[in-house]
């Protein structure tokens, strides 16, 4: 009985982590931009969702609008700044951190510093084996699976996916073969920001909405992407989330929160020592 409860918890945590990390998996995983502004993108998605909700737009439309909003911001960021730094990843670290600082202050100016609140569009919980699972939470997890599957299909089975993979594998040759490098980079960055915006909006009803909320997932997202393997969009993100989320949950059973959260760091160090390319240990996608 308790095992089922724990498995359900692990499932919920894993999917939420995967959702939050997915935008970073695309931006950092695919095109190597160390996006320290990922938390800010989540926060922005949440605030945009709150804003659209206050205009009485139905929730799922709000999510899409926020995704588009953050994607636009992402495109602007990419076009004016990131574009020149694809071969200098450590500089992108500083630039995206600046983006985080600026975005947070702009959010504070526009929306104020108070806690904002979004009610979950689907209230109530249903009981499974003695555990109450919030209905909204469960739906978000299903949606995450759907999202990752769709992205994987796009990535592996479509033209755009082939172009992106070509870009990652060998930028120069792909360019020589006629690929529009700049446009492909933009498309990927835009898609990653879109995902981060959607994630922020979906997570917003489960968390407090304050100007720093997204940063709760910043370090965790990096762990998920690095442990899962940079570049492995589906398998890496899911397995990374499972390892990170699962470890935290498992250790929390036997000890306190500090130990369980610290054990995640320990796990990441050990795994990276043994598998420098991530848990899947393959170099290509």
């Amino acid at each position: 009985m308790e095992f089922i409860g724990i498995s359900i918890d692990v499932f919920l945590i894993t999917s939420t982590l995967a959702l939050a990390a997915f935008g970073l998996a695309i931006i950092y995983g695919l095109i190597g931009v160390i996006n320290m502004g990922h938390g800010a993108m989540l926060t922005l998605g949440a605030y945009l969702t709150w804003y659209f909700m206050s205009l009485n737009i139905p929730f799922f439309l709000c999510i899409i609008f926020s995704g588009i909003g953050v994607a636009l911001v992402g495109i602007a960021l990419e076009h004016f700044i990131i574009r020149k730094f694809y071969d200098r990843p450590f500089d992108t670290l500083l630039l995206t951190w600046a983006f985080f600082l600026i975005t947070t202050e702009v959010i504070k100016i526009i929306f104020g510093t108070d806690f904002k609140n979004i009610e979950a569009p689907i209230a109530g919980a249903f009981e499974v084996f003695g555990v109450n699972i919030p209905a909204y939470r469960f739906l978000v997890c299903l949606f995450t699976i759907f999202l990752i599957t769709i992205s994987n299909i796009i990535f592996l089975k479509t033209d755009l996916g082939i172009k992106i993979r070509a870009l990652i594998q060998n930028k120069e040759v792909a360019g020589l073969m006629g690929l529009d490098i700049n446009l492909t980079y933009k498309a990927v960055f835009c898609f990653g920001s879109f995902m981060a915006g959607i994630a922020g909006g979906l997570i917003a009803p489960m968390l407090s909405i304050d100007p720093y909320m997204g940063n709760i997932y910043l370090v965790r997202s990096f762990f998920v992407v690095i442990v899962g393997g940079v570049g492995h969009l589906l398998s890496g993100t899911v397995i990374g989330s499972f390892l990170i989320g699962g470890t935290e949950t498992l250790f929390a059973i036997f000890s306190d929160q500090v130990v369980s959260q610290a054990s995640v760091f320990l796990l990441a160090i050990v795994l990276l020592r043994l598998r420098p390319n991530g848990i899947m240990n393959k170099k290509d996608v």
Partner: protein
Amino acid sequence: MKKNKKNKSIVNKKISRRDVIKSIGYLAIGALASPALIRSAHAANPIKVGVISPLSGAWTVYGKAHIAGFELAVDEINAKGGVLGRKMELVIGDSKTEPRIVVEQANRLIRNEKVDFLAGTFSSAERNAAGPVVKALDKVLLYPTFYEGQEKEYHPGVCNKNIFMFGPEPTQQVWPHMEYMMNKFGKKFFMIGSDYAWPRVTNMVTKRKLKELGGSVVGEVYIPFGTPQYESVLRDIRKAKPDIIFHSLTGSDTVNFRQQFAAAGMKEDFALWTVDDEEVVTTGLGPKVSGNDYVSFDYFMSIKHPNNAKFLKNFRKKFGQDALMNTVGVAMYNAAHMAALAIEKAGKLDTASLRENLKGISFNDAPQGPVTMRKDDNQIIVPSYLMQVNPSWTNVGNMFNEVQSFQKVVPLAARCSLPL
């Protein structure tokens, strides 16, 4: 050659008529100007107060009410002509919610800005960081926030003769209501708090009274800052089957936890009593998540006291109809007024006389009713209210329903070597 030496060795300057006229001129101007010089220097010499507030970082949400209370008081004081004829002036330092930045700001305000005294810091961690600084540089700190009480081992963050506590401690905020809560719900407490000084020591002090009343602690969890998921904690709570969840989480963690607690349908099974979530947090939670939970503080916007009506009117005039105020902002307001009263009483401004005159001072216009600063241990004596959140609140006006209140709760003596 002899001639040259003679010329060089003696400097023979004659005073010319031009020099005499010049010096008389300067003296005259000086004499005419001096009253103006002295007067303007005196009048332009404001009392500078260094206010350290979390304006950015994790607890940005609390910074607004924190500073607003002090600003309102300073406006009122200056409108009446200031203190000893001098206006009060704020110099603000942003603590960024980081204790080490508090140290920087405290040093900057005292050494560079030459403030006369400090007010603020928000969390106990910030106050404990400022403690050594105000002790070494001998400046008074007016600390507003509800806190964990003074235990000797945390000196000089507490038990510091320069730090005056304007917020309640657990023997005022928690102890008076424990019997009521235990009689109503049961004796098993599950304690959940953030992982730092305030929740830990508050729980320690609460446990003393709990034991006295025959209660027990079935779980005690401390959550590191920035924890998004609470599945394991919720599971622990379900397993432990407490009667009351005693809640001292803070920052965004409290909203995350209470949201997930409510979403998991656990509100029906357990009573929640929070000593952290005031108007700002409760507004962020919404009525569904916060409804029917219990909160205890020395001040709420909704308490019915003529002082409060007047205070809120002035507050809203300055900050807008929707502005939020809470126990911490009101404590800053009281602190500013009481410091002004103390300086007037002393007739001069320096740390020692401010310290001596703050002790024992009363302020009758405090929004929650008359309050007094106790002499021996720098602890303020305030009322204590237990409120229940209205499950269908729509604004701060109808957010809390009073369950019980005590107009004046005398706290336990501070656990320091007294008098301070």
